[in-house]
């Protein structure tokens, strides 16, 4: 079981409350987590990564275990604590504005 924390606007869009818990098959990676998340909440397709290229949208960041994983390869294993559900995988809308 993977715990995912979505930013406010995506929680509203997906009509979910706090953390989302998803099951994935195989290793826990950014790609497998996002695939499972989009499969369960199709309205999120395109909101975190491009529909076609599957590249992360520029102002979306992925954090876990106090690390910024945004630039990690999408198939790199996520930290063990995320894979085991001890720590959440955080989807963050980058801070911007003034």
């Amino acid at each position, binding site marked *: 079981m993977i715990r995912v924390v979505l*930013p*406010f*606007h*995506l929680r*509203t*869009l997906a009509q979910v409350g706090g953390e989302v818990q998803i099951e994935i098959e195989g290793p826990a990676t950014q790609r497998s987590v996002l*695939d*499972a998340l*989009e*499969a369960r*909440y*199709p*309205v*999120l*397709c*395109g*909101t*975190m990564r491009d*529909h*076609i290229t599957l590249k992360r*949208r520029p*102002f*979306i960041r992925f954090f876990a275990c106090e690390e910024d994983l945004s630039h990690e390869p999408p198939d790199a294993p996520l930290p063990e604590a995320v894979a085991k559900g001890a720590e959440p995988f955080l989807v963050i*809308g*980058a801070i*911007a504005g003034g």
Partner: protein
Amino acid sequence: MSSVRVLVGTKKGAFILTSDGKRKRWKVSGPHFTGWEIYHLKGSPVDPNRIYASQTSGWFGQVIQRSSDGGKTWEAPGGGVTMVPGEMPRGESNKFVYDTTPETGKPLTTHQWYDGTQHPWEFKRVWHLEPSLTDPDTVYAGVEDAAIFRSTDGGTTWHELAGLRGHGTGPKWQPGAGGMCLHTILLDPSDPGRIYIAISAAGAFRTDDGGNTWKPINRGLRSQYIPDPNAEIGHCVHHVALHRSRPNVLFMQKHWDVMRSDDAGDAWHEVSGNLPTDFGFAIDVHAHEPETIYVVPIKSDSEHFPLEGKLRVYRSRTGGNQWEELTKGLPQRHCYVNVLRDAMAVDQLDSCGIYFGTTGGQVYASADAGDNWAPIVRDLPAVLSVEVQTLP
């Protein structure tokens, strides 16, 4: 008694204003889609309870929303799961993918960038939604980077009408300051095959075969800011309007110049006449008087506020050239708002109502064709679009 529903898109959500036919008291609902930019909402002429909305964000991209109950509740129509054998279940939600098939897409991969180099087409957002005149499940979308898409399943899936970008001049289009957006879509009520569109900064285009083939319709436009002022394309058209009883007559607010065509865009002539400035964004036509048109002159292309700090609508009852200023009820001092291209609309009541929204968050309405104005809501986020539905 008839009633009116005003659909307001703002920088931070959508608002829906309703009133009876007197248009004196208004009920405001919203914000819907709080915190998102709502570039445009528009209702189906066939089924007024069917409303489409373009919800967009620099963070999260494009979402299409649809209501089937007049804006009380909304759904993202592509949010359902599409099953493909052997693949993960996926949603088709909000997917605007440029056509790059060899038949239509081969020459459509790049357009001109600010520095003159070629740049890939990149989808950014939906600027304008135009529901079909005959089918509530068919809707057109004008997008940035400029292209037109059509959905025939209520916004669930979208397919580009690639003949527009592919007609030949596509590689020469380039973005204006607001991006390279297709912002205007006009459906000809007398000819289902005829559609007009406008792009900043490429110009106006027309199809006569339902979107398969297109041609530029910019003859007569003159723009000093492009190398050849009379070029076939490159003009920064801000908005185009028509009256449904006479769809061959078009009125255009260009970056500079108010223009008119009497032959479906084949030729244009200037009708700016005595306007104090012919720069502006919005233009619309009276519901019952095809020669009565409205613009909101803006001081210049850099200041983007009304001349002398006075918010004035200008009305021509002669199809252009002779203009009268309309000021009753509008602020006549210290007013430095803008009125954007999709932020003016008219209702269909006997005494035609005119509506416009400002970047200062006010929506003004006149229930007497522009003679008297009053704010029907104020202090909203900056208004991006205003559409009006006249309900039985």
